[in-house]
């Protein structure tokens, strides 16, 4: 079977601005794949390229082997998209909206009605079926977007910030639901700002920044790339900073408290304790703190070169726009 998503050197330019820069990414069938990145990283542009709302400038993009432009009908038929924006038909009740969407995907009218009811029950807003979208609460609107993505029974479900601005209960409900869907065989592409969400749900995550792929790994692999901190409280404050082996990347002393940054806290702690005792220190307490995925994420995205993106150019981003000078610098670096 071809991958659920496969892009090769995917490029999207808006004039001189490059929203996607030679992005190559593969999501296997059945995977729960996360796309992480700060605002303006190109996550939504990437998704919209797959569903036809953005036309690529260069490169290749396929969904289950179908080119998203040459074979757009089959590619789009495979995808269910729950976008960030509330782009729902306001003229009809939500049940009718779902029936229409299923109809566009070739589901006959009777079956479309059954499916609409089924997904409304599944996301828990069946009793609102005869309401229009505008009358729903924020959380219900979010649920409806998911229902609309599910009504076509997609092989690939794309969730663009599905839990942005929703309460904790709904977030957990949505997590449970998408996990079930994934277990039933649906491939899931999730973009999120919430690192915890990716950590809980995703088999693999790609970190994007400024339209480029920074890395792809499992959440565990990513966490292993970070350093741990072993905090030791000594019975008495050391007069000088202890000289430790090469396993200690950084050592700081504050009174009777010693903090040592190491690659793997669990395996390094016994050696650290031995070394300290050998130096005559008495250990009162010890604590190991693992680097959070969030810290690694911040670290990975902060160190990247900045490149202007459409959202930042539009002023829709928190990040300041890039000056001409910075752009020239990037061009010289061969980035832009």
């Amino acid at each position, binding site marked *: 079977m071809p991958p659920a998503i496969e892009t090769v050197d995917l490029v999207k330019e*808006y004039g001189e601005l490059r929203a996607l820069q030679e992005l190559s990414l593969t999501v296997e069938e059945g995977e729960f794949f996360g796309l992480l990145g700060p605002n303006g990283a190109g996550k939504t*542009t990437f998704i*919209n390229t797959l*569903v*036809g*709302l*953005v*036309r690529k400038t260069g490169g290749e993009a396929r969904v289950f082997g179908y080119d998203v432009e040459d074979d*757009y*009908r*089959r590619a*789009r*038929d495979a*995808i269910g*998209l729950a*976008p960030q*924006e509330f*782009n*729902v*038909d*306001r*003229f*009809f009740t939500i049940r009718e*909206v779902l*029936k*229409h*969407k*299923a*109809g*566009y*995907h*070739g*589901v*006959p*009218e009777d079956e*479309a009605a059954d499916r609409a009811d089924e997904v409304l029950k599944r996301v828990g807003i069946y009793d609102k079926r005869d309401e229009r979208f505008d009358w729903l609460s924020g959380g219900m609107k979010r649920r409806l977007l998911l229902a*609309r993505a599910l009504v076509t029974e997609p092989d690939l479900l794309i969730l663009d910030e599905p839990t942005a601005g929703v309460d904790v209960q709904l977030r957990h409900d949505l997590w449970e639901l998408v996990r079930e869907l994934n277990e039933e065989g649906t491939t899931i592409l999730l973009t999120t700002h919430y690192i915890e969400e990716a950590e809980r749900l995703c088999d693999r995550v790609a970190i994007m920044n400024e339209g480029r792929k920074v890395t792809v790994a499992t959440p565990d692999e990513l966490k292993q790339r970070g350093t741990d901190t072993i905090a030791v409280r000594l019975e008495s404050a050391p007069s000088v900073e202890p000289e430790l082996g090469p396993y200690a990347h950084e050592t700081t002393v504050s009174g009777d408290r010693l903090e040592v940054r190491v690659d793997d806290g669990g395996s390094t702690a016994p050696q650290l304790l031995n070394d300290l005792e050998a130096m005559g220190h008495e250990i009162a307490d010890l604590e190991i703190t693992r680097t959070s995925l969030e810290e690694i994420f911040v670290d990975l995205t902060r160190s990247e070169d900045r490149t202007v993106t*459409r959202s930042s150019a539009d002023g829709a981003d928190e990040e300041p726009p890039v000056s001409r000078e910075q752009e020239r610098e990037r061009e010289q670096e061969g980035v832009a």
Partner: protein
Amino acid sequence: MLSVGFRALFRREILRFVRRPKNTFMPPAITNVLYFAVFGVILGNRIDQIAGYDYILFIVPGLIVLGAISNAFENASFSIFHGRWNEYIHETLTSPLSYVEMVVAYVGASAVRGLVVGLIIAAVGRVFVPIGIKHGLYLVATMVVITSLFAGFGIIGGLIARDFDDLTVMNQFILRPLVFFGAVFYSLETFEQAWQVNLSLLNPMVYMVDSVRYGLLGYSDLIGVGILPAPYTEFAPLVSLGVLTTGTVLVLAIDVYLFEIGYGLTD
């Protein structure tokens, strides 16, 4: 062409205007009652017959065209633009419908609205004056073609509009003047100067109004002013319909092309 997806979109488009008669069918009905009452009855009694027809009967075809094409245009342009404005047109764009299916569904439904409005105006006119149909098949073909043509223009309007004011500008400042100078309320034979006739013949509305008038009354200005040389003079309505049909196909092809390149629809 008649795939399940196409039917679903076509149905959605039809339901959108059918469920809002106060916005879609009532205004043309009321406006045309006023037209017939004022121009037909009050003023018409003081105007001589035109081309052998009572004035009120003479203006019926033009009013039908005015209502039908305005509504076809308005429906398509509004549906596309409103969908773009609120982004729910993404529901269609992210579906596996072909671009041809999308365009034909939008155009077809808008043409239906134009045809229904045309029928409403004819029914209103019937209250004031008996109306017969001289060339039924020709009339139906003409109405289908011109409502489709303006629905096709409506798609383009809906795609290029940047706000709702643009739609109003298109309808009020382009469409309406062309229709009013399209021999709705007068005959080309009224003109005494040749240049006046020639200038009018540059207005595409003249051909539409004339075609519908020919279908309903059996009278054609284009035959009257001899737009085609003898012995082909009598073929003017058929040529006119042929040209309008060709124009419609061209406009629909442009619509499909715009959908293909995602003009106004995609980033």
